[in-house]
């Protein structure tokens, strides 16, 4: 079977969202021959769904903003669990990354003096989000896509071939990262979704930028692509995942009609003046301001309303608390019986702004509700509820180089990388994360590859290729538990997995439920090995799903195990049985590794499972960065011994 087609590249980028494309641009500009491989069509990545904006302390709207303030907000939002060096680099470099987009043709909304306009968002002290209406993600993807086209046009002029140094393999999926005998990355094994054909891209550097894991949950704002592929690829290649228990539930997803349940309602609705009310008509968020944020948020509706026009002399409305707080508050209101008919709360802009302003500032929200729910948001309130949105956990990486730990040649950027956002991500920080660390991953991946030329290139092992091919073909020969019985339906397995994660490892977690989830995951794992498909290899979605199940099951187990282990509530991890934040947990990272590092997936023991968990103490925060905070604030987060240092 080794006659699989092979191509040689310097850098392979898996994923063509914001991080992947930014990495590819950087690698190509560093001189590396770069291949991008993505599951969808070029330009369709999930990044287009990002609405609010790109957080960058440019200070265009409030000149008091700077990277230190942004760093502070990011650490607060992440409850100080962030990999602080990442948060620092992110805050420092984000403005350059945004400005660079303009030189590639991006057109952001403008301020009166012609600079990039910035808007308010939850958790950000100043208006900070560069935006284009409520379609910023689309602008980002399109700009990067067009930059890639422009680089290809350069290559066409120079070499007569658009794809001489930068090629996008669209609608292709990577199922394995390949390694050489020394454990270094040597390439990736892929299949072309359209034809079902296998191929291998040989490369010393692989940048994983595959995004998140939301498709393991039933109610999610994520697209079908978000099956945790990159997380699983890294795990299978021997790299650890970090803090996978932290899953962000966006407070405002649509709740009705059922077919769109989970689709995102942008935070800009609240940033621009929208308020949350329960079925009694009460603005309930005032009751949910946690102690750590008490002095930063308004106590009365009057003060909150004044803030929009006079942010210097008033505190911000509690609707703009970090997402984890708002999501929990909504959850609590609904549980207390003060929810809407469809099990959400009301998000209202109609009484807060004139209809034209709403249509101008939130055009796609207007459109979305009109088209999908028959609701005119300029005349009535929206019904919203929490939806699985983002995973803060991810591949453990080196802060500066984005290199995955333990696997030379493997890099990760964007949502798939862990650490940057700590236990909770602020809105707007994901797009800037993509750009900052996408660029860094591309840069260091290209540098690493340039040192490995000729004989020194890691070689691809034919046995690994054969094994990967066999693994990918399994679903075509799957059988039921006993011969003659039909194989499992991958769609059914997927639905059961989503239901399990949603019900048992969702927004509020309990020990017994997570144990139950692990047992269910073990059962699904056994059944997934029998997942079978009809038809042939050409564009067969049943087959694609059967292959993705492996990844979703691996990632789901990581989440469940880590969530069970962390006996506190912090950011995107809320334990009903451990409802408070515990300072002792502040400096603990949880690392997930494959229990059977030889790569075998036979482990079906529900107790042990496929994942082993390890605790690790985080590196102390650099003193000059700690000095950016008041002592009183640090006391709330840091353990005693950390404070004394």
């Amino acid at each position: 079977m080794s006659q699989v087609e092979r191509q040689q590249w310097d850098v392979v980028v898996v994923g063509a969202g914001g991080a992947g494309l930014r990495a590819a641009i950087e690698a190509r500009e560093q001189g590396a021959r770069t291949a991008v491989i993505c599951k969808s069509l070029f330009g369709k990545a999930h990044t287009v769904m990002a609405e609010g904006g790109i957080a960058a302390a440019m200070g265009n709207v409030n000149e008091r903003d700077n990277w230190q303030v942004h760093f502070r907000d990011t650490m607060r939002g992440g409850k100080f669990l962030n990999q602080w060096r990442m948060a620092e680099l992110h805050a420092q470099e984000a403005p350059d990354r945004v400005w660079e987009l303009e030189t590639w043709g991006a057109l952001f909304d403008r301020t009166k003096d012609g600079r990039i306009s910035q808007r308010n968002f939850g958790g950000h002290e100043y208006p900070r989000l560069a935006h284009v209406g409520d379609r910023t993600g689309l602008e980002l993807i399109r700009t990067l896509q067009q930059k890639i086209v422009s680089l290809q046009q350069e290559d066409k002029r120079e070499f007569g071939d658009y794809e001489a140094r930068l090629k996008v393999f669209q609608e292709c999926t990577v199922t394995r990262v390949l390694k050489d005998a020394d454990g270094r990355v040597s390439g990736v094994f892929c299949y072309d979704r359209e034809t079902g054909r296998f191929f291998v891209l040989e490369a010393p550097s692989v940048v994983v930028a595959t995004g998140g894991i939301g498709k393991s949950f039933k109610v999610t704002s994520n697209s079908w692509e978000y099956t945790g592929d990159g997380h699983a690829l890294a795990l299978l290649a021997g790299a650890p995942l970090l803090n996978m228990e932290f899953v962000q539930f966006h407070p405002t997803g649509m709740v009705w009609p059922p077919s769109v349940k989970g689709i995102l309602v942008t935070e800009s609705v609240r940033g621009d003046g929208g308020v949350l009310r329960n079925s009694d008509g009460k603005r309930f968020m005032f009751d949910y301001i946690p102690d750590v944020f008490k002095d930063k948020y308004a106590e009365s509706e009057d003060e909150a309303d004044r803030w929009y026009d006079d942010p210097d002399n008033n505190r911000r409305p509690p609707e703009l608390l970090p997402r984890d707080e708002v999501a929990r508050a909504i959850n609590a209101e609904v549980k207390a019986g003060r929810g809407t008919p469809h099990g959400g709360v009301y998000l209202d802009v109609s009484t807060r702004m004139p209809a034209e302003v709403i249509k101008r500032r939130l055009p796609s929200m207007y459109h979305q509700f009109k088209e999908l729910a028959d609701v005119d948001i300029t005349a009535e309130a929206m019904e919203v509820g929490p939806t699985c949105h983002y995973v803060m956990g991810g591949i453990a990486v080196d802060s500066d180089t984005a290199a995955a730990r333990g696997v030379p040649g493997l890099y990760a950027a964007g949502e798939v990388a862990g650490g940057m956002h700590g236990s909770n991500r602020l809105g707007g920080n994901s797009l800037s994360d993509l750009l900052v660390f996408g660029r860094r991953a591309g840069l260091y991946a290209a540098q690493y590859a340039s040192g490995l030329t000729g004989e020194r290139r890691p070689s691809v092992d034919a046995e690994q290729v054969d094994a990967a091919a066999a693994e990918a073909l399994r679903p075509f020969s799957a059988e039921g538990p006993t011969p003659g019985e039909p194989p499992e339906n991958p769609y059914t397995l997927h639905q059961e997995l989503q239901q399990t994660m949603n019900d048992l490892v969702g927004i509020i977690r309990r020990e017994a439920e997570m144990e139950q989830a692990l047992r269910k995951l073990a059962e699904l794992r056994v059944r997934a090995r029998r997942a079978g498909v009809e038809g042939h290899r050409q564009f067969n979605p049943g087959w694609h799903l059967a292959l993705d199940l492996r990844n979703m099951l691996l990632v789901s187990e990581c989440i469940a195990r880590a969530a069970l282990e962390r006996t506190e509530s912090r950011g995107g991890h809320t334990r009903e049985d451990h409802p408070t934040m515990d300072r002792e947990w502040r400096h603990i990272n949880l690392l997930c590794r494959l229990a059977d590092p030889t790569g075998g997936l036979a482990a079906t023991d529900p107790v042990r499972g496929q994942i082993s968990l390890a605790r690790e103490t985080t590196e102390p925060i650099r003193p000059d960065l700690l000095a950016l905070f008041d002592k009183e604030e640090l006391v709330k987060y840091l353990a005693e011994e950390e404070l004394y240092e």
Partner: protein
Amino acid sequence: MSSYEARFKVWRGDAEGGGLEDFKVEVNDGEVVLDIIHRLQATQAPDLAVRWNCKAGKCGSCSAEINGRPRLMCMTRMSVFSREETITVTPLRAFPVVRDLVTDVGFNYEKAREIPSFVPPAGLGPGEYRMQQEDVDRSQEFRKCIECFLCQDTCHVVRDHEENKAAFAGPRFLMRVAELDMHPLDEAEKTGVDRKRTAQDEHGLGYCNITKCCTEVCPEGIKITDNALIPLKERAVDRKYDPLVWLGSKIGRRSP
């Protein structure tokens, strides 16, 4: 919640041939056509090929033709059809079919590469760009495009005349030319690219007979014809057919 059984005809096949297949499938309140296609996949036709991503009208992946009209499946609510109606879903008919509802949209990616990219202004570094909102409004409208390629699919210039594909960029990419020509800081002209002229000479603007189907099908509601194609035609006229403008620009250029 009320549900009923709907009758569907879905085109299944590939480049070798195929035809409409009949299905009966459950439909619930508030569902869109894409939900029904997914239900078919999960219950009756697991290998039914379909492209989709965001399911919220933002990525432009699930383009198809529903009862003969180019639409996004995720934005077509079942409630727009009567319960008795048989709903026909086919792949886009302007592009080569790959399988079932999936077509080869490579034409669009080829055309995208033929449009000269944004040329950044010399002498302005990152962070130094200043543009007024009214100067970017027009291009911003065009940048709302989600590249669903429904306009490319419906445009009769290529839909009904395969041979025109070589010479005609299609509404989406002519709109891209307009977007760049209206970009307040684009300096293509200084590098010798006259977008107004090349719109007609190289990207086939003359083929457009402004019959507005692109605008009709645009799920983003972009006024492609009125705001991009016709203004671009007028700009081409400035360059090629209007001696007064030509004379004016000559005189204008000579005066200091």
